[in-house]
C-alpha cells in the first residue's frame, strides 16, 4: 500500500515538474517563502528602523536597494513585505477555501432549498465587485491585518462555493456513492470521506491561483491607502509610495512591483502546472 502511494506521489511530481516553467515558478515561490521566513536573518536592518538623514538614497553598498522616504532600507522592507503578502495571501485564501468548500459541499449535496438560497447569496456576493466588497467590509471590520485577511477571504468565498457546488453535483449520483448509501453510510461520512477527496484537485488549483489574486488585491488596497496600517511593510504600499519617485529613483517603486509580479506569476504558473498534473485521469488516486 505504502509503495503504491509513494509511486503515485513520484509520478505526480514528475508530471508536475515536467515543464521547466513550472520548476521556475515553484522555485520563485519557494524563494519568497524562505525570504519571508528568514527575513530577520537576511538583513542587518529592522523594517521600521528609520534614519532621517538618509532618505530616498539610491542603491549603495550599505543599502543595496537604497532607502525609502523615512530612511528605511528598501531591501529589508521588501523581505518583510514578503511576509505581509504571503501571510495575507495564504490566510485569506485558506479562510475562503475552507468556508467556500464547506458551503459548496453542503449546497451541492443536499440540493433543493438550501442550494437555491446559498446560490442566490453567492450570486449576490458576486454582483458586488470584490474590491468594493472588501472596502465595504473594511468599513465594518476595521483596517488591521487580521481584518484584512477576513475581509479578503470573505470576498473570495463565492469562487470556491461555486466550484465545489459544480463538482459535487457531478459526483453525487455516481455509482460508488450510491453503493455507500446502500451500505448505510451516513451523509457526513459520505461527504467527508468520499466526495470531498475526489473534488479536491480543482480546489487546489484554484487555491494557488487565488493566492496570486489576493496578493494583487491587497496591493491595490494598499495603493488606495486602504491596506495594512503603516508602518507595516507591504509591497503594495511601497509601490504606492514609490510612484512619486519613479523618475528620480526608480528602484524604490520598481523593486516591490517586480516582486509582486514574480510572486503572483509563480503562484499562477504553479496552479497551471498543478492542473496539468492533476488531470482527470489521476483524480481519485491522490
Amino acid at each position, binding site marked *: 500500500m505504502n509503495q503504491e502511494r509513494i509511486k503515485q506521489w513520484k509520478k505526480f511530481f514528475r508530471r508536475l515538474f515536467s515543464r521547466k516553467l513550472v520548476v521556475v515558478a515553484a522555485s520563485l515561490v519557494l524563494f519568497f517563502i524562505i525570504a519571508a521566513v528568514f527575513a530577520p536573518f537576511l538583513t542587518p536592518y529592522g523594517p521600521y528602523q528609520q534614519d532621517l538623514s538618509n532618505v530616498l538614497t539610491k542603491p549603495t553598498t550599505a543599502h543595496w536597494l537604497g532607502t525609502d522616504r523615512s530612511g528605511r532600507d528598501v531591501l529589508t522592507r521588501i523581505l518583510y513585505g514578503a511576509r505581509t503578502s504571503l501571510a495575507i495571501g495564504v490566510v485569506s485564501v485558506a479562510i475562503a477555501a475552507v468556508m467556500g468548500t464547506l458551503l459548496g459541499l453542503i449546497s451541492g449535496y443536499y440540493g433543493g432549498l438550501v442550494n437555491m438560497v446559498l446560490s442566490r447569496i453567492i450570486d449576490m456576493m458576486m454582483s458586488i465587485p470584490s474590491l468594493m466588497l472588501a472596502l465595504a467590509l473594511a468599513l465594518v471590520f476595521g483596517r488591521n491585518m487580521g481584518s484584512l485577511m477576513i475581509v479578503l477571504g470573505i470576498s473570495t468565498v463565492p469562487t470556491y462555493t461555486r466550484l465545489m457546488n459544480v463538482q459535487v453535483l457531478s459526483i453525487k449520483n455516481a455509482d460508488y456513492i450510491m453503493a455507500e448509501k446502500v451500505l448505510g453510510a451516513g451523509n457526513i461520512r459520505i461527504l467527508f470521506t468520499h466526495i470531498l477527496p475526489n473534488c479536491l484537485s480543482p480546489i487546489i488549483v484554484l487555491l494557488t491561483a487565488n493566492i496570486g489574486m489576493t496578493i494583487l488585491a491587497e496591493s491595490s488596497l494598499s495603493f488606495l491607502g486602504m491596506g495594512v496600517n503603516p508602518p507595516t511593510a507591504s509591497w503594495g504600499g511601497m509601490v504606492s509610495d514609490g510612484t512619486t519617485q519613479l523618475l528620480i529613483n526608480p528602484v524604490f517603486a520598481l523593486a516591490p*512591483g517586480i516582486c509582486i509580479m514574480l510572486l503572483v506569476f509563480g503562484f499562477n504558473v504553479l496552479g497551471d502546472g498543478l492542473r496539468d498534473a492533476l488531470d482527470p485521469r489521476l483524480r481519485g488516486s491522490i
Partner: protein
Amino acid sequence: MSKYILKRIGQSLAVLFLVSVFAFILLYMVPGDPVYAMLGGDITREQYDIAYREMGLDRSVMVRYFGWLFRFVTGDWGKSFKYAMPVVEVIGSRLPVTMFLGLISVVIGTGFGILLGTVAGKNRGKLSDSFITVCSNLGAVMPVFWLAVLGMYIFSLKLGWLPSHGFSFASEPWLMVRQAVLPVISLSVGQICITTRQMRSGMLEVIRQDYIRTARAKGLKESQVVYRHAIRNAVLPVVTLTGMSIRNVVAGAVSIEQVFAIAGMGSLLMNGILSKDVAVVQACIMIIAIVVVLSTLIVDISYGILDPRIRIK
C-alpha cells in the same frame, strides 16, 4: 427556452433583493450612530430628531427596510452629505463615464484576447505562442495601478502624446478620445490577458477533438477549420469570463480613476466608503449590482442560445 429565461429572471430578482438587504443593513453595520452616518456629525439636536423620525429609526426594522426600498425604487436615493446634493444627481454624472470607459475596455479586452488566444492556441509551441503566453502571464500579474502610472509617465510625460488626466464628456471630441486612451488601455490589459489565457487553453482542448480531425480530413481549408469549428467552440467559456469581468469594470477600477483623476463610480464608491457617506454607498452598491446582474443575465441568456446543452440542465 422561455422557461429558461423566466427562471433566470426570477433568480436575478432574488439576487437584487438580497443585495438591497445587504446595502440596507450596511448602514447599521457601520460603527456609530446611523443618523450621524447619514447626515454627518455637524447637525443640531433638532435636525437629529427630525432625521431620526424621517429615517424611521423609531419603527421596526421591517418597516424601515421597505420604506427605504420603496424610496429607492421610486428614485429617491437620499442626499449625499458630503456633496450636499441628491445622490441621484451625483451618480447620474458619474455612471455614464464609468460605463463608457468600461464597455470600451471590455470590448477591446475580449476582442484582443480572443485574437491573441487563438493565435497562441493554433501555433502551440512556436515562437508566437511562447511570446503571447509569457506576455499574457506577465500582464495578468501586473498591478493595474502600476501599469497606469507607467503609462502616464511614458505616454504623457516622456512622449507627450496623450493628456495625463481628466477624462470627461465635456471635453471636445478629439481630446476626449485621447483622454480615454490611457485609462482604457490600463483597464483592458488585465482583461486581455485573462481572455487570452482562457482562449488559448480552450483552443488547445478543442483542437485535439475528433471533429477537428474530421473537418481536416474532409479537406477543409485550415482557416475554415479554425473559424467554423475551433473558435466557435472555444469561445464559450470566454463569454462567461466576460460576463464576470463586467462587474469589475463597473466598479470603475478605482485605482485608475484615482491616477487619472476621472470622476467615475469607482472613486465615488470608495470616497463614499471613506467618508461614511452611507446614502451614496447604498445607492452605488445597488446600481452596480443592477448593472452586473443585468449584464450577467444577458450573457447567460446568450450563452443559452449559443449552447443548447445549458438550457436542458
